[in-house]
């Protein structure tokens, strides 16, 4: 069952772009929280009820690749299906991901916090473990 994230995140900005720092207890929750935080940059979805379900299946060569592929697949789905993704259930098996996503239909142009994110980048990407917690740093092209 897709859910709201249980990790924490903060937003940061560079001269032209924006990114997020995420802390979570498991790798699955890290992926879920990162996805939620990315859409939170684009739209305030707190008052919107999900009306669409999506399924995502991905396989990559590394955890970093899988994370970037996951975020970019969600950007693709958002732009082509006109939805904002708001709840996530991620299952990981090695570098394979299966996710159920609940999304809200949106009118093009309504995701107006920072405009549409073009892509998640590898620049400065970091996934680290410290004190049994997972940390992520990712920058988006806005």
């Amino acid at each position: 069952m897709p859910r709201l994230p249980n990790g924490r995140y903060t937003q940061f900005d560079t001269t032209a772009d924006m990114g997020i720092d995420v802390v979570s207890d498991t790798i699955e929750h890290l992926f879920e929280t990162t996805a939620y935080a990315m859409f939170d940059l684009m739209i305030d979805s707190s008052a919107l009820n999900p009306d669409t379900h999506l399924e995502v299946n991905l396989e990559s060569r590394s955890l970093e690749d899988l994370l970037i592929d996951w975020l970019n697949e969600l950007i693709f789905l958002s732009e082509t299906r006109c939805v904002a993704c708001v709840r996530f259930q991620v299952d990981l098996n090695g570098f394979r991901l299966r996710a159920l996503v609940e999304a809200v239909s949106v009118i093009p142009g309504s995701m107006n916090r920072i405009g549409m994110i073009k892509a998640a980048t590898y620049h400065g990407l970091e996934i680290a473990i410290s004190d049994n917690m997972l940390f992520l740093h990712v920058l988006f092209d806005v």
Partner: protein
Amino acid sequence: MFSLMSDTIKSMMKLKRLDEFRWEIPQGSIPGMRVPGWVFADEEMMRSIRQDESLRQVAQTATLPGATRASIAMPDIHFGYGFPIGGVLASRVDSGVVSPGGVGFDINCGVRLLKTTSHVDDLADHISDLVKLMFSHIPTGVGSAGSLRLNRKQLHQVVVNGSRWAIDAGFGFHEDLDRTEDGGCLPGCQIDSISDHAFERGVEQLGTLGSGNHFIEVQFVEEIFEPVLAAAFGLEKNLITFLIHTGSRGLGHQICTDYLRVMGDCLRKYAISLPDRQLACAPVESKEGQSYLSAMRGAANFAWANRQCITHRIREVWMKLPGHKGCPEDIQTVYDLAHNIIKIEDHDLNGHMVSFAVHRKGATRAFCAGSKYIPESYRLYGQPVIVPGDMARASYVLCGTKAAEREVFASSCHGAGRMLSRKAAMKAARGRSIAGELLARGIRIAAKGKETLAEEMPEAYKPIEQVVGIMIRSGLAIPVARLRPLGVIKG
């Protein structure tokens, strides 16, 4: 760790000052640099540049295989991802690489300048209507869909033929092609180099402006600096002009995303070591390098067709303007150029012509008179270089020089260059009406949201006069004309 990552780390790169406008990041400043970094800036601009990590990005870009002469930064440089924005790197075709990060996600983001036959006094009472009509007639904003919904076959024709497709479909005149970089079409796009995801993102977006820093401005020619060149470009004082800034939209974004993955695998395959995965690359002549160039050409062609379709919409608006008798032929293309692209170009290297993959990310071509890369109609004079400023100040038309060809692979700055982050701009705009302030300066604006206006406020950008001044005084460009905004539409 959590907070450390978010902090802005001011650039600690060592710099050697070469002259008033030239700075060098010495080769060896970071491991693996194959050439030095060169930055064009005055002292005040350098203080601003040092506020972010863009100088480190100049140095990191210098580690790319085949890098020649220098990793170059124009005065509008700011922090990007991988390459800095305002960066130029030429990598030898015979031994170098192509890097999608050296183009960025918005492939062939660029500008097109249109001139009209009307003068500012003729149109003074119509600017408000003109801005409203453009805003209602030209799709803007996040993920905006256009009135052109192409089928897959038509979309394939767009990525192969670029602006030529638009002209054949009735969206413009053949003369537009003559005044577009590369005639609005880079040959060599193979359909199978572009993913279904990319085509799906592009299918509804031809003829749309998008969001962020993309815009269309109505302007007038405020000042002519070089009458002979201005006349050659068809510009005269007080003439009304339009400036379009947009690119390849979702199709280009997806192509860059797809090939960053491919190039990541190439680092292992070709034993290339880089300090930033976003710089991932492949040898120019490799299967992966050629495949990327093919897909990039497709996105570039889409972008040229996009600006051509928007040109057509502006002509339609021109004809509908109440109380103004206009015809489509009144509006002519001055020039259309790319500022996020790789071009295979021949340049002089120690007395020999050598073929390079010239990466320009937030930088444009700037060839001088006589170059084979300039349309015939301008070849006697030099290439028009169009440099947009912010919403309130001015834009400039420059011309390429021999020094630009000799030093910086015939390149120029692409705009004012961002200075404030989005959050900083939002904070600075709090409690103010940016639209009201622009109106007080005689500039009408139509935009989808207050957020965009705040993020794109004039103070968010470096002063265009300073950026252009450095280009001119360092000999990299000749000033031709200054264009003053009268109205703007934004996504």
